[in-house]
């Protein structure tokens, strides 16, 4: 008991004594939040850096190439003497949009069907088996998908399409980009459908509706904003996708739509220039920023649209 007493005095005394040496930790209390705030500010600077970089270099580009030509010319042919060069972004945009459209034709029905299956039909056990597989699909690097498109999908298409298909074409990367996006659409749409309360399902089932009717007439309409937002995000991903289209799409920009022929997307052009021996300061060098800017605007609009849709039309349950 006496040692306890002594001990008690000493603990209180020790805490008191330590307190007088607290100035160091008081400094930490002031410095630490500032440091963390700087971290947060860096993310803002990243955005500012992207916008600033794209804008300044794009301005330089437009000091050499007419902005009117950029938007109206349908040819993109920079690798020639400066006088003959064509900088019509439409050719690259069409390549990007062709691939994106094909990708969506694959990804939307398959992704949505998988989402409906997982959310409305599948047992917990099946879900536990399928969701990790979708996660694996989502985690495969795009370079691997690109390899798959070039060495497997293109030859398969070549053998089944009458008249064959070019080695580089829009169809094969389009399909593979679509496959890449399936897990994203499936999981985001499933999340939206899972958020629909069970009471709504039970209400419809109690009236004798089949699962299919419940899914189509109750769950899907209720989750529509989230589902559509997932499509829009999928489109944004497809537009920004680089390696699959670089490897399997080719490097022939064209504004004509022919899905069995070689095309070039905006992203593939940037890679092509980065890979070449284009010197710093040439018009071609600046052109990748003008293309990057166009790409950035496209994806930004899609991302903001997706946020707007999911916020604006959010169902209140």
């Amino acid at each position, binding site marked *: 008991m006496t040692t306890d007493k002594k001990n008690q005095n000493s603990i209180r005394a020790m805490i008191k004594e330590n307190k007088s040496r607290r100035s160091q930790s008081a400094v930490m209390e002031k410095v630490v939040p500032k440091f963390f705030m700087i*971290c*947060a500010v*860096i993310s803002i600077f990243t955005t500012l850096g992207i916008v600033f970089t794209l804008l300044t270099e794009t301005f330089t580009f437009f000091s050499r190439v007419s902005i009117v030509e950029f938007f109206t010319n349908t040819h993109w042919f920079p690798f020639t003497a400066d006088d003959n060069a064509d900088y019509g972004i439409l050719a690259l945009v069409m390549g990007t949009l062709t691939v994106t459209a094909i990708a969506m034709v694959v990804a939307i029905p398959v992704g949505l069907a998988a989402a409906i299956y997982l959310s409305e039909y599948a047992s917990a056990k099946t879900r536990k088996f399928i969701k990790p*597989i979708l996660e694996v699909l989502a*985690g495969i690097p795009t370079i691997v998908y690109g390899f798959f498109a070039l060495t497997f999908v293109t030859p398969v298409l070549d053998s089944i399409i009458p008249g064959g298909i070019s080695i580089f074409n829009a169809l094969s990367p389009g399909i593979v980009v679509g496959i890449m996006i399936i897990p994203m659409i499936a999981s985001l749409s499933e999340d939206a459908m899972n958020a629909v309360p069970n009471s709504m399902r039970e209400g419809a089932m109690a009236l004798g509706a089949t699962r*299919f*009717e419940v899914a189509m007439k109750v769950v899907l309409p209720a989750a529509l904003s989230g589902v559509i937002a997932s499509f829009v995000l999928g489109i944004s991903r497809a537009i920004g996708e680089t390696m699959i289209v670089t490897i399997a799409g080719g490097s022939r920009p064209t504004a004509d739509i022919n899905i069995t022929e070689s095309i070039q997307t905006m992203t593939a052009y940037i890679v092509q220039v*980065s890979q070449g021996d284009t010197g710093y300061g040439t018009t071609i060098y600046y052109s990748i920023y003008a293309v990057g800017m166009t790409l950035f605007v496209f*994806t930004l609009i899609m991302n903001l649209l997706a946020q707007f849709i999911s916020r604006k039309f959010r169902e209140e349950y």
Partner: protein
Amino acid sequence: MALINKESVKKKMGSRIAANNFAKFLFILATSFSLLVLGVLLFRILDEGLPYLSLDFITSFASRLPERAGIWAALVGTIWIMTVTAPVSFILGVGTAIYLEEYAKKNAFTKFVQINIANLAGVPSIVFGLLGLTIFVRLAGLGSSVLAGGLTMSLLILPVIVVASQEAIRTVPKEIREASFGMGATKWQTIRRIVFPAALPGILTGTILALSRAVGETAPLLVVGALAYVAFVPENLLSSFTVLPIQLYNWTSRPQEDFHMLAASGIIILMIILLIMNSIAVYIRNKFHKRF
């Protein structure tokens, strides 16, 4: 007189059930399609890649001759990039998350940072490449170096780490924060000794998944100026470099079938690395799942 004709309801029932079954079949078909693709993809890669896979393949440099080519430079380059990216993105990402969750007041600035991070996550990776090219390679004068590439990758995966860390920090119950404050702990003591350790498993899982994404990224590093053909390993942070996906891209884009098989062998190595990283992440997630 009944308003509903029971007979016609009954008659329609059969076709409604048939529609349900048919739809279910289609939904299962669509879901199986994903499984099928994964199966075919893995089979193709193993089929093409296994013949070239050997210890020599891992320890050799790139070569014009397919039978002598290896991925050593790319493998070491990837590790170099990760040694820059992992600490930088971890510190920035977790720091941002702690700031947003623990210190920031709920004002316009905080909301702006949050929206900004959400939008950054949607910017195509190749645009980050353009940012890195201008800011790190040219303006900062780092050249096409490991440091420039690593910093570019850090910014690319930053939003993922921030969001994952925020979610992890949010799962720490407010009761244990109160307990800490109630004993006279300061804010920083509470964060460092209670909140951060409790959130760490979630933060680590998110960080490893983000890093595994960086390991597989090609486009930003191509733009930053990573080399496609390298017969040396980086010596320091300012050395030029290549990474695994770029080496694979290089092989894939050659016309010869032999190089495609090399690419497939490299893909196997890349996928094994990603598999290991993901397994660690999943292990951490399951081990510390739902402690509160």
